[in-house]
């Protein structure tokens, strides 16, 4: 075997991106300067809470080089910045989401809240003119302490008069209370998990331009997920048609969460670039970063742990007030709830857990996800409680942990996650060895002799990563899916370009993903290029956060690469005049088993382009590409919902299914209506009924906030028509879900399962066979010829009924390894199983 076949995965390989970073050739947003570049400077509130009496811009407008001065008035008719995760309060009401305007209008709600901005020829001119903007404020009492926010006389938003956005909770309260009554010991702690500033070393930067000739926009922005930025900005804020805005996130100097979000400045500059007709650049100075980057943490928590006399945990009760800041940032609501409450079991078998979280508005910078987001906060709560309990009960902290570790798997925690496997005793044992706990006493003594203090603490961490899957996230309130896209494009010369929806801002995707593909294709890494961070190049992407790039994005690429290999085998089989089943791919070569026949990967690639050498049915001329847009998105994240690296969560019914089976079930039974809006769902609205269509379609103008709710509603909507079957298996067609007595949510929200599903599948198969037979009889030669041997229908199948009709056939095909001759896409796209547009 030649060198590349030895494999790349698992090897330590020097990063490919380092060469440009080390020589100063990285291209960060602020490094980019366009011809005719102009610059923006923002006027920000010096008050935490104040009414804006007047904004005088005359002097600024007259200043040298000024191209425009913009205030809240200009953005009054424009949508607010949306929040991407709906949390529903315990009383069933949706969280309160007051408008987050692009520029403050009427009131400023935190120090640094943007009030106006100036665009000028040079940065110095912009800054000088910004200083000339006169804002008269009437200062209002501010509330900054989350513990005092709820019910404070100082009201941040009129839409939330008690300053509360949501009151959320999970767990059996009565059972927890009962357990506390019977406990031999209760440990109680009150503490604050302090607020922090993410502080990526590269400040946020934006460079926006508008091509007035065709009304298209390009935004370069230091961001972790350019597609999401574009979606939110277009659909909810500015109303720009999504295909008219290109978002590029070039080299980005770290994010740590703070560059996930859609920010005021991004929207303001894109909007203004059309007004001034020139590219506009803004780069935060560090002081602005401190004031305006979304902060992290800021919980005020009361936590209690009930133990029996032997130190066995009986119950845990946690009550947190989460400071959301002045506005709901993009994922602010998910962090102290879904990402916090569900991790409170830690590594322990605490049988009853109750958590209540109140999200409050205060006159502080918005708070959102930062490094770990919610999960470190949960670990802090649990581990502080355990250590304190150990001290109070005079039990060794290691021993107390051992007594309570989860030892039997799978383990369903009382806060909703299922851990599939783990070995916590071993890791703790190893940690105590590494820390030389036995020798600690003497080390402490030595320190004391020098007048120094020495301490020892334990923490057993657990985390849910690789965020997804979309179906579960959707049920929990996510307003976007959590899948990832990966596309592998093979050029005629055998070189490969990989497009990923993940984004690298220090993680090293350009190396890791190339390593992955090189390993699979057996070609040198130098032959593989990784592209990311540009909506014009990459179909779609959910971006990088929550430790999901390799787990979700990398797996999407791996799946796409598998498809490339599968296609290559067909061509290679033809070239070597062998049966496809006899061709294997090893070490970058397609080989016929049992012979010395072989064709290298590159030769297959070039034959793909010299289509004349291929039989008509295989000749789809042009370079080969394959794409996994929704790469089994319903199972990948599920598989990667890691609990100490190897976990997964239960399906909706609480069953612990094998990964593979769970995925397939989920795919089959999840109708599109439940998936929420996605980029491919061009006709999503049709399925949610006429009202849904109106709501789903992103529109312009001031109704943007309304659309946000519309999207949410549509995502939660049950199908208007659900096909039930009567006792004899006949569908009860045309009857509304409501009239059939189906509830929203629960098992009834989805159509037929079990026997009903089988009935439907059989019926579809019968119909498909009948259609195929009819076509064969009709002698439709053109279509028959177009049917490729791989039988892989690549039609997008956006209509549910037809989509579903494909499933059993695909499954059947998998069972038989081949499809009956003449079978084709059920959408009758006219080209057999291969759709011409793909």
């Amino acid at each position, binding site marked *: 075997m030649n060198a590349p076949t030895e494999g790349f995965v698992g090897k330590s390989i*020097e*990063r490919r*991106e*380092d*060469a*440009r*970073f*080390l*020589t*100063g*050739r*990285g*291209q*960060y947003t*602020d*490094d980019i*300067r366009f011809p005719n570049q102009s610059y923006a400077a923002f006027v920000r509130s010096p008050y935490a809470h104040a009414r804006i009496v007047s904004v005088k811009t005359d002097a600024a407008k007259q200043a040298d080089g000024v191209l425009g001065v913009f205030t809240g008035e200009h953005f009054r008719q424009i949508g607010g910045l949306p929040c991407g995760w709906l949390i529903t309060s315990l009383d069933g009401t949706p969280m309160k989401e007051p408008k987050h305007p692009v520029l403050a209008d009427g009131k400023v709600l935190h120090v640094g809240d943007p009030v106006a901005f100036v665009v000028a020829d040079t940065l*110095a001119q912009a800054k000088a003119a910004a200083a000339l903007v006169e804002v008269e404020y009437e200062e209002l009492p501010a509330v900054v302490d989350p513990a005092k926010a709820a019910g404070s006389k100082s009201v941040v938003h009129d839409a939330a008069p008690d300053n509360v956005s949501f009151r959320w909770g999970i767990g059996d309260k009565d059972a927890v209370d009962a357990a506390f009554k019977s406990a031999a010991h209760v440990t109680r702690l009150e503490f604050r998990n302090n607020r922090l500033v993410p*502080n*990526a*070393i*590269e*400040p946020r930067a934006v460079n926006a331009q508008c091509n007035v000739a065709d009304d298209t926009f390009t935004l370069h922005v230091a961001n972790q997920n350019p597609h999401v930025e574009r979606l939110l900005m277009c659909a909810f804020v500015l109303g720009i048609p999504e295909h008219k805005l290109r978002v590029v996130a070039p*080299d*980005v*100097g*770290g994010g*740590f969460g703070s560059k996930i979000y859609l920010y005021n400045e991004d929207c303001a500059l894109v909007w203004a670039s059309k007004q001034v007709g020139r590219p506009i650049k803004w*780069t935060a*100075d*560090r*002081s602005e970063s401190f004031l305006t980057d979304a902060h992290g943490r800021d919980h005020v928590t009361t936590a209690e742990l009930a133990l029996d006399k032997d130190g066995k945990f009986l119950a845990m009760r946690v009550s947190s007030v989460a400071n959301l800041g002045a506005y709901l940032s993009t994922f602010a609501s998910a962090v102290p709830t879904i990402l916090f409450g569900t991790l409170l079991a830690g590594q322990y078998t605490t049988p009853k857990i109750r958590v209540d979280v109140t999200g409050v508005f205060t006159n502080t910078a918005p708070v959102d996800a930062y490094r770990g987001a919610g999960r470190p906060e949960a670990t802090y709560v649990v581990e502080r409680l355990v250590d304190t309990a150990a001290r109070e009960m005079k039990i060794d902290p290691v021993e107390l942990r051992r007594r309570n570790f989860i030892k039997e798997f799978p383990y369903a925690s009382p806060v909703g996650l299922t851990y599939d496997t783990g070995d916590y005793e071993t890791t703790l044992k190893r940690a105590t060895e590494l820390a030389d706990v036995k020798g600690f006493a003497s080390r402490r003594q030595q320190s004391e002799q020098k007048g120094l203090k020495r301490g020892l603490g334990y923490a057993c961490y657990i985390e849910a990563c690789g965020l997804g899957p979309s179906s579960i996230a959707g049920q929990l309130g996510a307003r976007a899916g959590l899948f990832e896209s990966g596309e592998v494009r093979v050029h005629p010369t055998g070189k490969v370009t990989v497009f990923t929806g993940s984004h690298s*801002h*220090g*993680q*090293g995707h350009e190396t890791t993903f190339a390593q992955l593909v090189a390993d699979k294709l057996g070609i040198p890494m130098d032959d593989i290029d990784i592209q990311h961070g540009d909506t014009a190049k990459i179909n779609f992407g959910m971006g990088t956060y929550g430790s999901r790039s390799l787990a979700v994005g990398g797996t999407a690429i791996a799946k796409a690469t598998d498809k490339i290999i599968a296609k290559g085998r067909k061509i290679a089989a033809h070239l070597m005049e062998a049966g496809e089943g006899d061709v294997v791919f090893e070490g970058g070569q397609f080989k016929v088993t049992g012979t010395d026949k072989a064709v290298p990967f590159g030769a297959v690639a070039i034959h793909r382009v010299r289509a004349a050498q291929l039989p008509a049915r295989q000749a789809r001329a042009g370079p080969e590409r394959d794409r996994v847009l929704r790469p089994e998105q319903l199972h990948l994240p599920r598989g990667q919902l890691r609990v100490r690296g190897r976990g997964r969560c239960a399906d909706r019914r609480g069953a612990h299914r094998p990964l593979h089976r769970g995925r397939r079930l989920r795919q089959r039974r999840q109708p599109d209506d439940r998936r929420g809006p996605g980029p491919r769902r061009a006709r999503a609205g049709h399925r949610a009924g006429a009202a849904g269509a109106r709501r789903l379609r992103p529109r312009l103008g001031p109704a943007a906030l309304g659309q946000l709710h519309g999207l949410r509603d549509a995502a939660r909507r049950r199908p208007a028509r659900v096909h039930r079957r009567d006792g004899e298996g006949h569908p009860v067609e045309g009857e509304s879900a409501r009239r059939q007595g189906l509830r929203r949510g629960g098992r009834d929200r989805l159509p037929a399962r079990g026997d009903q599903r089988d009935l439907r599948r059989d019926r579809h198969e019968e119909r498909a066979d009948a259609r195929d037979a009819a076509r064969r009889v009709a002698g439709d030669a053109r279509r028959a010829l177009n049917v490729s041997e791989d039988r892989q229908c690549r039609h997008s199948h956006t209509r549910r009924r037809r989509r579903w009709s494909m499933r059993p056939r695909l499954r059947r095909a998998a069972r038989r390894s081949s499809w009956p001759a003449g079978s084709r896409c059920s959408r009758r796209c006219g080209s057999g199983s291969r759709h011409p547009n793909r």
Partner: protein
Amino acid sequence: MGITISLKVNGRGFSREVNPGMQLVDFLREDLRLTGTHVGCDTAQCGACTVHVDGRAVKACNVLAVQAAGREVTTIEGIARNGELHPMQAAFKSCHGLQCGFCTPGMVMSAIDLVQHHDHSSDAQIREGLEGNLCRCTGYHNIVKAVRQGAQAMGAQR
């Protein structure tokens, strides 16, 4: 009312009219388009803008362009020779001493100065020597390792 300054940057002579208030970093980034020198703060704390002026490391955001008149300035773009990375650059690469790369140019320039002009025999001295450069990604361990390796390679080269 600009002032004309002449200086050498990465071995090449430049003569430009600059605003007296212009910082050296802006001169390098905007006038000469040497964007490898970054700006990460406005308080001279992050060190991302570190360059060499007459062979000594300075934070270019804390020096006026006019102060560099007649001097020789070296930026990150100017330390690789004939397409070969400087030993310190090579050490950062092989020790994985960088992630997002934004602080890296300043870190490398400071490290070279440290090795050339200060005692760097212990890790503690290396850490102290790099106190003026902040990195948010790596946690510094690999940077210290890289400086140690880079120092050895520089010593061998001399």
